[in-house]
């Protein structure tokens, strides 16, 4: 089941105005729910209940329907991204080279699971498919910065680097 966080929502009035404007301009579009959620995610980075309510409200679409769409498609996230987004490649090569253990170590170190964000908003953790760096397997990226040929023991050091 798709995870969602209980981290307090920090949307700004500007974000809300931007989303409502888009929704008002596009409310008559056929099949508007999907592009509306994409737009909302573009603005907020994820789709918490507060954001889905804005969409439901403007488009008169039931919350259950929006939630259904947002949990069906992998492109939608219900958890915010942290200041540092750690992505673990679970492509075939990385997986064979022990990416599972890397993921476990990250989970343990951060106290969160994949698709979650730490309560302080600092780190988020996710899994991704092959990023094309199989020669460096197993690979993680931290805000796009690549770390390869990892063993679990490397993880605390990498996290410490980003902690402050």
């Amino acid at each position, binding site marked *: *089941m798709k995870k*969602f966080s209980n981290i307090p929502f920090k949307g700004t009035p500007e974000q809300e105005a931007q989303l409502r404007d888009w929704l008002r301009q596009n409310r008559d579009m056929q099949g508007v729910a999907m592009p509306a959620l994409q737009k909302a995610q573009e603005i907020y980075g994820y789709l918490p*209940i507060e954001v889905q309510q804005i969409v*439901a409200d403007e488009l008169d679409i*039931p*919350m*259950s*329907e929006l*939630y259904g769409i947002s949990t*069906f498609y992998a492109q939608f996230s219900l958890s915010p991204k942290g200041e540092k987004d750690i992505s673990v490649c679970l492509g075939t090569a990385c997986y064979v080279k022990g990416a599972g253990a890397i993921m476990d170590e990250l989970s343990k170190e951060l106290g969160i699971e994949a698709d979650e964000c730490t309560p302080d908003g600092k780190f988020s953790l996710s899994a991704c498919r092959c990023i094309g760096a199989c020669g460096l397997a197993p690979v993680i990226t931290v805000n796009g910065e690549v770390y390869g040929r990892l063993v679990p023991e490397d993880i605390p050091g990498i996290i410490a680097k980003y902690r402050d």
Partner: protein
Amino acid sequence: MKNVNLKINGIPVSVPEGSTILEAARLAGIEIPTLCYMKDSNEIGACRICVVEATGTRGLVTACVYPVSEGMEVQTNTEKVRNARKTTLELILSTHRKDCLSCLRSTNCELHKLCHDYGVDENKFSGFNPKYKIDESTPYLVRDNTKCILCRRCVAACKEQHVSVIGPTDRGMETSIGPHFRKALLDTPCIACGQCTVVCPTGALVEKDDTDKVWKALSDPTKTVIVQTAPSVRAALGECFGMPIGTNVEGKMVAALRRLGFDKVFDTDFGADLTIVEEAHELLERIKSNSVLPMITSCSPGWVRFAEFYYPDMLNHISTCKSPMQMTGAVIKTYYAEKYGIDPGTIINVAVMPCTAKKFEITRDNMDASGYRDTDIVITTRELSRMIRRAGLMFTNLPDEDFDDPLGQDTGAAAIFGATGGVMEAALRTANDWLSGGEGEPIDFSALRGTAPIKEAQVNLGGKTIKVAVASGAKAAKEVMDKIHSGEADWTFVEIMGCPGGCVNGGGQPIQPQYVRDTTDIKALRAKALYDMDEASTIRKSHLSPVVKTLYEEYYKGSYGCKRAHHDLHTTYVARKKYM
């Protein structure tokens, strides 16, 4: 329209172009099993129970969505078809919590019946068994996803009601049906209509069973346990005992209730007559004082809840009258208790209702005329049938008995409350008499009858023509409310019921299998039983009810809408937020 000729199991059939194989088969009198299919509202080919072989197709096709073509030959009962259906059922069972012996839907489960028909091995696959928390958050229904087969019939029913508080979430093996963000049903704008429980093929959505509370009350010697039954219950209860749809079982129902041990068996019809005089009085007052119009009826707690969530700024249109159930409950614990010297604190009022929302209604504020709850326990028609079985009563063999006096007397006007348009018709009979100062005609307002979702009419009320409308089902309610809101409509009086067809089709009524629902107008048959009762009544106008007359003479000082009547028989509404 052009017809298409095909053969099903060798039998020639001619059906309109565009028909599905299932529709063609039904015309030919051949039954193809279905689980997810609901005519018009859920034709999605999801469950794959209706698979058949057909020429010109690759593999098996789902009959419920596959269109017929000229010269097609369909086989619905080959070994390949039977094996496919059997395997599908076994796969469904692999994730189904099989507490079939005690499940509320035991003996009335569409999945169970098919599994039995196809001789399945219920333990063939021991698959992925997802854990779901049972949602018992509301006072009216229970959602148990461990019994859900993902047919989406409930989703379609909820959408038909224009509420859509539940829907499919997540995907693949993790797909489940539920509210947004895995909320409890209590935290959604669910209107409690219970239509989802009527369409669920299994026990995944059921009424909250309150029969244990009733049994406990009945065995408590310190309590006076009084039961009342809504008009629609007698028009449907017989179905639970194999009687034809639309059989009026009033006499046997009363006999059964007496044998269950209730101290008094009263009739909600009494409360319906009382509602009419209070409501007709309120209507005439509103017209006279140029107050908020149209006035809208308030009997249906599903409708009231719908209005509170979806039209919170229009609640002043709703009549302040309590529903017939709550009026009856209030009168039992005030007038009746006083008259017969019973401490209202020792009375337990049980109401048998065709409705799940009534279980919610009794928890509302301002529902305690005597200082105690107007009604203590609500059970649905289905729950009553289970009590009758547990008591070992041979229902069909029971004699016909009469309700107890004094709150067992009724008029024909009260009987038709259960059908869409009935409350309106009953109110007009009374208002018309009052305005014309005598025995007004007509008695029958035929434009207000029938099961259409919305009916409009111009009626003559004491020489003046007014426009009225009747809506049933929340979707129709929305249409009517939008017209009132925009000023497009100039109705004076509107009746709204939360369920399509009114109470006869309520969420607490006996469950008929989907193929019966697809092929029979159940609500019309049950409504006919009520109109027949009205026709057969000697008194057909609420204000002429002897017990209502006595009540006003003895208790409300002869005046409708007096202070005391207002305190006991009227209530308030509350604007609700859709999402917290």
